[in-house]
């Protein structure tokens, strides 16, 4: 698990943790059942308050992404496959619409954009 905390970011630290763990679960980097460091260990490693890491884990637990097993530790929850696919599709959609916004700003036409996408697709495969 990789987590980078930015102190200059306007986002609260617990949110930064939630976002990064969530992204790693959705991308599959953190697979189902993978153990996470304890609240205290993570706080120590990131040099943040135990209260903050606790809050982040609780948030992820509430969303059903983590299982906090009392006395045993915290694990990535088993995910509903369809739910995961939907989440990943949303991610693709979000990135596409971001690209779309940039393209519009530069005055790129729909055809040009389609051509760009086709080229990228063919290059990758």
């Amino acid at each position, binding site marked *: 698990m990789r987590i980078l905390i930015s102190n200059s970011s306007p986002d*609260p*630290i617990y949110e930064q943790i939630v976002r990064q763990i969530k992204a790693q679960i959705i991308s599959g980097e953190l697979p189902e059942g993978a153990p996470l460091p304890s609240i205290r260990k993570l*706080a120590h490693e990131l*040099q943040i*308050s*135990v*209260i*903050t890491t606790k809050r982040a884990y609780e948030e992820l637990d509430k969303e059903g992404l983590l299982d906090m097993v009392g006395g045993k530790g915290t694990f990535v929850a088993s995910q509903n496959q369809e739910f995961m696919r939907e989440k990943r599709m949303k991610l693709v959609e979000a990135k596409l619409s971001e690209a779309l916004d940039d393209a519009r700003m530069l005055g790129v036409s729909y055809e040009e954009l389609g051509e760009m996408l086709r080229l990228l697709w063919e290059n990758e495969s």
Partner: protein
Amino acid sequence: MTDQALQVSGLRKTFKGFTLNDVSFSLPKGYVMGLVGPNGAGKTTIIKLIMNLIAPEAGEIKILGLDNRKQGVEARARIGFVYDVMPFYADVSLRDTKRAIAPFYPKWNDALFQELASSFDLPLEKKVKRLSQGMRTKFALALALSHDAELLVLDEPTTGLDPVFRRELLHGLSGLLQDEGKSVLFSTHITSDLERVADYVTFIRNGSILLTETREVLREVWGVVRGEEASVAILDSKLWRGFRRYPHGMDILTSDASAARRALGDGVVVERASFEDIVVLLDGGEVHHA
């Protein structure tokens, strides 16, 4: 059983020219609290009262649920204590100092001491007087930790340490807290110490507690409003926790940065409050209005 490592309530102690007045705060088990304030604010007095080295005129202190005066011996056996100046004999080696101290503690764990000594790189054969300030602090910390103390009380542990050593020490301290049963209270006048380890921060000035709050809330909820006096001073006085005027504007410490942002809109800057901002701006709790 109690889930509080330390409960301080209504403490009063008067010295010539200094009064510690109605000091109350509590530290839940498993957390670190930083006691911060300028020199002479009363930090060491509070710690001496906790250790029962001096008697209060009023108030009470509970250590892990035990009254620190009525059950003092039992309570103190469960505290690990690091003074800023440790009373060691200068001409005695660390190993012999340890041998002299260990028998006082029923739960002394020599294996743990050896482990800490090696992880702190303590030269056990050297005499106390040959140690640097940092090494002396680490030695005191190793001793304090080796009798299975549940509450660590450290009076200015970082004073006199260079920044690298200081960070190492604080990091080591938070590493020791992997065991939830342990708690730490440390005093400091260096606000950056708090940014690394404290879960709770208690601000003290002139013998009074100004504020005791979690680091999480201070970082994520509090803020500093900066701008021209005319545009910032219209902020609802309920949100003020202190202010300072400058030739070109004004800083207001607020306990709700997002409310301040909504209320004041553009034209003012609302930033995260650093611990230094809080120490400088925090007032005695009463609301001052410009």
